[in-house]
C-alpha cells in the first residue's frame, strides 16, 4: 500500500474551494478534509499556502514522436508536462508518420504507457493529413481516440469537412480544426498589418483564420456535428464562436497562453521564437481572446506545445518553422496574465476550470482527469503555489527544445508537486524520474 498525504492546502475543483488535506492511497483519492490524518508510512507533501487541484489537461501538445525525436519525445514531453502541472496530454497527430491509422495510434499509446503524463492520442481527419481522403476514424475511435484533427493545417475542402463531420456523428468524437485558409495565408510569416508592413515581412490577415471559422460553424450547424476550434486568435473568431454558442451549436474553443500574453510587435527583433501559427496578432485581438476566455466563450487554455530544435529556430525568420514550447510555462503565464496585476480578468477558480475540467470534458477524459477531488477518483492532481515568483530559464527546461518566447520573463505562480495516478511524479518542482 502506498500513500501520499498532501497537507495544508486549499482544494479547488468544479465543486468549489475548501481548506482540506488530501489522502491518496494506491492511486486513488482516499479522503479529503481538514481533520484527516496521514497514515503511517505515508509520504507527506506540503501544500500549505497552495492550491490542490486536478492535474491540468492539455488538448493540444506536439510530442513529435514518431519522426522528430530530436525535438521532443513522448517521454521528454510528458516530463515537461508534469513539471507544468499536467497529468494528461492529447498528442497531436502531425507526426512522421502521422497518426492516421490504428497502427500508429497503438505505437504512440505504447510510448506513453509509463510516461509522467497520461498520453491520449488524437488522430488525423484525413489520410496523411493530405486533405483529400477521410482517415479511418472508426478504427481509431475503437482504440479510444476522441479527438481528430489535421492540425498544422486546416481541412481546406468544404465538402470533405462536411463529410467528416457527418461520418463522425455516431462515433462520439469531436473534430478539431486548425483554422487557416491556405491560399490567403500562403508564404506568410506573421500577422498581416502594421507590423508586417514595417518589418517587410509577408503576413496573413485575420481573415485567413476567420473564413474557416465561419465555414465550419455553418457546417456544424448543417450537420449537427461536434466541432472544436484550436488556438483561436482573432477578435472576429471569438465573436463568431460566441454567436454560434448562443444559438446552441455544439462548438467548443481553445486559446493558447502565448495568444493571451503576446502580440505581433514581439516580432520586431526578428526572433523566430516568436513565429507561430496562428501568428501573434494585434493588441485588440489579444484583448478579445482574453475576454473570450473570461466569458467562457473560449472553453479551455491549450498550450500548442510545439518543440523545434535550436538549429531549426536559428534559421532566417521566413524559413524557421513556426511554433513555441509551452507545457512548463502555460499555467504560470496564464495565471500571471489573467489573475494578477491591476485589473485581473479572471478568478483563479475560472482559470483552473479552463485548464482542467473543461478540457478534460472536451477530450473525453473526465473519468480520470479534471476532478472533482473526492474519494474514489483516480488521483491525478497538482499542487500550485499562486504566489511563487520565478524567472523562466530555457536552459533549465525539461523539454528537449528551447524555443520559448518567455525566456527571462518573470512569472507569478509555480507548480510544486504533480501526482499522476497516485504517484508523485514531481516533488518540489523536480521531476522524480
Amino acid at each position, binding site marked *: 500500500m502506498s500513500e501520499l498525504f498532501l497537507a495544508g492546502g486549499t482544494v479547488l475543483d468544479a465543486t468549489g474551494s475548501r481548506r482540506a488535506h488530501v489522502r491518496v492511497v494506491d492511486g486513488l483519492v482516499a479522503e479529503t478534509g481538514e481533520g484527516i490524518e496521514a497514515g503511517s508510512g505515508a509520504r507527506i507533501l506540503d501544500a500549505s499556502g497552495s492550491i490542490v487541484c486536478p492535474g491540468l489537461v492539455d488538448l493540444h501538445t506536439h510530442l513529435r514522436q514518431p519522426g522528430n525525436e530530436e525535438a521532443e519525445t513522448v517521454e521528454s514531453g510528458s516530463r515537461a508536462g508534469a513539471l507544468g502541472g499536467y497529468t494528461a496530454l492529447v498528442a497531436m497527430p502531425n507526426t512522421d508518420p502521422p497518426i492516421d491509422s490504428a497502427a500508429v495510434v497503438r505505437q504512440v499509446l505504447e510510448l506513453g504507457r509509463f510516461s509522467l503524463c497520461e498520453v491520449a492520442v488524437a488522430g488525423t481527419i484525413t489520410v496523411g493529413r493530405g486533405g483529400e481522403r477521410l482517415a479511418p476514424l472508426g478504427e481509431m475511435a475503437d482504440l479510444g481516440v476522441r479527438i481528430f484533427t489535421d492540425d498544422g493545417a486546416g481541412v481546406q475542402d468544404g465538402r470533405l469537412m462536411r463529410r467528416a463531420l457527418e461520418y463522425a456523428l455516431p462515433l462520439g468524437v469531436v473534430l478539431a480544426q486548425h483554422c487557416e485558409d491556405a491560399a490567403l495565408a500562403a508564404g506568410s510569416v506573421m500577422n498581416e*498589418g502594421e507590423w508586417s508592413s514595417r518589418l*517587410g515581412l509577408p503576413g496573413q490577415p485575420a481573415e485567413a483564420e476567420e473564413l474557416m471559422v465561419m465555414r465550419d460553424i455553418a457546417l456544424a450547424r448543417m450537420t449537427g456535428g461536434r466541432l472544436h476550434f484550436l488556438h483561436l486568435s482573432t477578435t472576429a473568431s471569438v465573436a463568431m464562436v460566441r454567436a454560434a454558442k448562443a444559438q446552441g451549436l455544439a462548438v467548443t474553443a481553445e486559446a493558447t497562453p502565448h495568444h493571451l500574453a503576446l502580440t505581433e510587435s514581439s516580432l520586431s527583433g526578428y526572433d*523566430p521564437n516568436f513565429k507561430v501559427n496562428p501568428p501573434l496578432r494585434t493588441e485588440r485581438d489579444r484583448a478579445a481572446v482574453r475576454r473570450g476566455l473570461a466569458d467562457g466563450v473560449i472553453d479551455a487554455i491549450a498550450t500548442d506545445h510545439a518543440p523545434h530544435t535550436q538549429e531549426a529556430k536559428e*534559421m*532566417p525568420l521566413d524559413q524557421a518553422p513556426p511554433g513555441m514550447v509551452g507545457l512548463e510555462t502555460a499555467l504560470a503565464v496564464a495565471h500571471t496574465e489573467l489573475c494578477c496585476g491591476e485589473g485581473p480578468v479572471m478568478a483563479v477558480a475560472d482559470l483552473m476550470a479552463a485548464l482542467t475540467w473543461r478540457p478534460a470534458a472536451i477530450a473525453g477524459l473526465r473519468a480520470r482527469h479534471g476532478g472533482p477531488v473526492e474519494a474514489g477518483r483516480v488521483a491525478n492532481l497538482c499542487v500550485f503555489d499562486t504566489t511563487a515568483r520565478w524567472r523562466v530559464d530555457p536552459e533549465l527546461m525539461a523539454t528537449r527544445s528551447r524555443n520559448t518566447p518567455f525566456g527571462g520573463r518573470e512569472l507569478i505562480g509555480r507548480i510544486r508537486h504533480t501526482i499522476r495516478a497516485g504517484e508523485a511524479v514531481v516533488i518540489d518542482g523536480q521531476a522524480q524520474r
Partner: protein
Amino acid sequence: MTSLLAVEDLGARGIREVLRLTDSFVEVSERAIPRVPALRGRTVATVFFEDSTRTRLSFETAAKRLSADTMTFSVSTSSVNKGESLRDTVETVAAMGIDAMIVRHRSAGVPWQVSRWIDASIINAGDGWHEHPTQALLDCYTVRQALGGDDPFPGLRVAIVGDIKHSRVARSNVAAFSALGASVTLVAPPTLLPPSLEGWPVEVSHDLDAVLAETDVIYLLRIQAERINEALFPSLREYASRYGMTRERAARLCPSALIMHPGPMNRGVEIAAEVTSLPNSLITRQVTNGVAVRMAVLFRLLGAAEASEALVAHV
C-alpha cells in the same frame, strides 16, 4: 553606435554626419592615390547570401580605400540559402577575427539575428524587403550633392514610385528622407503598397501623372516581372503605361526635378531608356557615390569615437 542595421539607427543627426563625412571621402576618391590609412589593421568581411556583385564590390572598394583588410564570402549556394548553418557560416567567419561584417540576405531580419550571435559591427547591405540603409544614404548624398549646400532637404518633395511593398530601398529611403525633413509621397497601385501604412511619414497617390508637376525628386523602383504571378498587376505593359517614367512624363517634370533609380533598371518598364541619360538624371552619380558613402559608414562605425564636448574656460 556599433552597427548599422536600419536607417533609424543613425537618426537625423547621424545621417547628416555621414553625409558630411562623405564629402571628405569623395575628395579622397578623387586623388591619384585614393587611399587613407584610417582603418589599417581592421578586418571587414562581406558575407553576401544574395548575389549582388555591384554592391559587394562597392563595399569592398570602400574598405580597401580605408586600408582595411577584406574577406569575401559570396554564399549563393542553394544549401545555405535554405537556411542551413546560417549561424555556423557567420560564426566561422567571425572566428577568423573580424571587426565588421557586411551582410546581405534575402530574408528580412537576418542582420538582427547575426548581431545576436557575433561581436563585430554589422552593416545591413539589404535584408529581404526590409531595409538597405547604405543605399538610402548614398541616395540622400547624391541629392545633396546635386542641389548643393549642406542641408537642402527640409521641404524637399520626394516621390517614390513602384513596388514599395517588396522594396527595402523604399523603406530605407522613406526613413532617411523624412528624417532629414523632406516630404515623401509613395506612388503605386494599391497592390504594390504595404498592407498598412500606419505610422509611415508619407502621402500616398495612385496617380503618377497628378504628382509629376509637384515633385523635386522622383525615385523609380525596379519592377520584378515575377510579381505578375502573384496577381499584383496584370502585365508589365500596363504597369509601364500607368507608372513608367516615359520620355513624355519626364518632360512634364519641373525643369529642376531630379530623376533617380537604385538599379539595375528595366528599361522600358519603370523607366524609358532615353530618360536615364537626361541631364537631370542622377543615376550614374548614385553608383559613383556608393563607394564614398560606404567609406563614411565604415569609418564612422570602426574609426570615429563619439565626439565629446569640451569647453575651454579662459584663465
